[in-house]
């Protein structure tokens, strides 16, 4: 059965994107409106949400693997990380294409003058080389540096969480949720690095 796990997770990660792509296709062909009266905003929020969820999930693999003594989880880490990057790219694309409508003049101003966009863009920049070096061959070539390079995920997830915290409006819920989970996952790594007890601790033997 376990050979089905990977395709299943692939489909799960793909599903929200596929739905959104279908909705955009309907919008393009003049079909039913699944995106509401402000479709660009809707797409921006949805892609953003899935980007941070999957980024956090990819960050959760290592702690879960140790806490539950479940090494097989590592098989899914790259795929989930790449999906996170995929949703970040869609998020950026929606922003450039549908919110700014390729007005290049505005894009510079938006990135420079709106701190939450500066932060989000920085996260995107950081994630790009990670996605580019995700193949085994890059991993082999980079050797130990691969691991170092990919620690940048920590920075990207902090920036991603800050990006969300910055746009808090009437509720702290998202900020507390995403910020809190990122803090926990990074905190676990720190503790694990310095504490033997944490290294040996697992919920399932």
């Amino acid at each position, binding site marked *: 059965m376990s050979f089905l796990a990977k395709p299943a997770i692939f489909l799960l990660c793909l599903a929200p994107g596929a739905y959104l792509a279908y909705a*955009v296709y309907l*919008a*393009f062909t003049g079909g039913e*409106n699944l*995106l*509401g*009266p*402000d*479709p*660009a*905003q809707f*797409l921006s929020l949805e892609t953003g949400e899935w980007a941070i969820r999957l980024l956090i999930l990819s960050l959760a693999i290592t702690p879960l693997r140790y806490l539950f003594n479940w090494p097989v989880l590592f098989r899914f880490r790259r795929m989930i990380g790449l999906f996170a990057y995929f949703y970040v790219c869609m998020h950026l694309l929606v922003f450039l294409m*549908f919110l700014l*409508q390729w007005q290049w003049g*505005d894009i510079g*101003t*938006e990135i420079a*003058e*709106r*701190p*939450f966009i500066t932060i989000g863009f920085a996260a995107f920049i950081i994630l790009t080389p990670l996605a580019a070096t995700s193949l085994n061959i890059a991993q082999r070539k980079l050797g130990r540096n691969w691991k170092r390079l990919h620690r940048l995920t920590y920075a990207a997830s902090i920036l991603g969480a800050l990006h969300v915290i910055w*746009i*808090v*409006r*009437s*509720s*702290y*819920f998202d900020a*507390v949720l995403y910020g809190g989970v990122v803090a926990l996952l990074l905190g676990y790594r720190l503790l694990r690095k310095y504490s033997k007890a944490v290294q040996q601790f697992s919920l399932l033997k």
Partner: protein
Amino acid sequence: MIIKTRKEIPSSEITPEAVYRDRRKFLKSSLAVGAGGTGLLTSALNAQTGDALFARAPADINLASKPDWLVEKAAARTEAPASGPFNTDEELTPFDDVSTYNNFYEFGTGKDDPARNARDFSIEPWTVKVEGECAKPGSYSLEDILKPHTFEERVFRLRCVEAWSMVIPWVGFSLGDLLKRFEPTGDANYVQFDTLVDSEQMPAQRSRFATIDWPYQEGLRMDEAMHPLATIATGLYNDILPAQNGAPLRLVVPWKYGFKSIKSIVAIRFTKTMPNNTWRDLQASEYGFYANVNPQVSHPRWSQASERRLPTSLFMPRRIDTMMFNGYADEVASLYDGMDLRRFY
């Protein structure tokens, strides 16, 4: 600025609102031709029964119950004048969008939360407390508040600080006419409003994560409040307000960002000094007291130079330039003579 006119829309896409607009035009012309016109009008209405015309404000709008007298008053509204600031040629935002795309944080954070969470909202009974610098403070019932006023239709642009906008046919009357009845004193320099606090009916007021210190509050300077464009809305389209749009009475200040137009009002307070307003209390660097629509003053999160006119579409977007005072500069700019609008945003 006028965007797409109805003529350019293929007939298959004509919205019920176009029908509504047609009926409004039709009414005018039929009135002009007298009794003969009325017969035609009836048949035109019959032709649309059950679809376009009545689909806009369905009988079961989100409310536990609708007071008959209020429904009758809304139906008896006078039409918006053909020209002038109380009307516009711009395409109306469909009822469905006006009533499902809302910022009403008492009912949730998402745009569709209010429509979902306000289904059984009750406006009976409803009391408005009037307090502060006035000769006639007290607790007034909804009927006391609304009965003396003639309702009119007012079609205004609504510009949200989030850079989207709508065109909405409200039903209501000038706020100033209401305020005068309480005889504000010479010390009444400002007026403040509170939204209902009722965590049983308003789920987000129960949330531990709310940033807002309920009640939601807004305020106006007295001369702004007395301006005829400042409106108490009690309905939209052909009906009373759905809960998610601020039933049973709300403010509509068309030259200011939408957050000034406070919903579901339960208190009116005349004050000597500038009162609190919720978003300024939360984030004074981003939201001011005046919050006049101003394309030159950018918000840290949204450029205010342009806006998305809703409903918009992905591939034929309606992105239009934002107008100073949301297009009501001729009427209201003089209220701010000599003020630095960058400082008093």
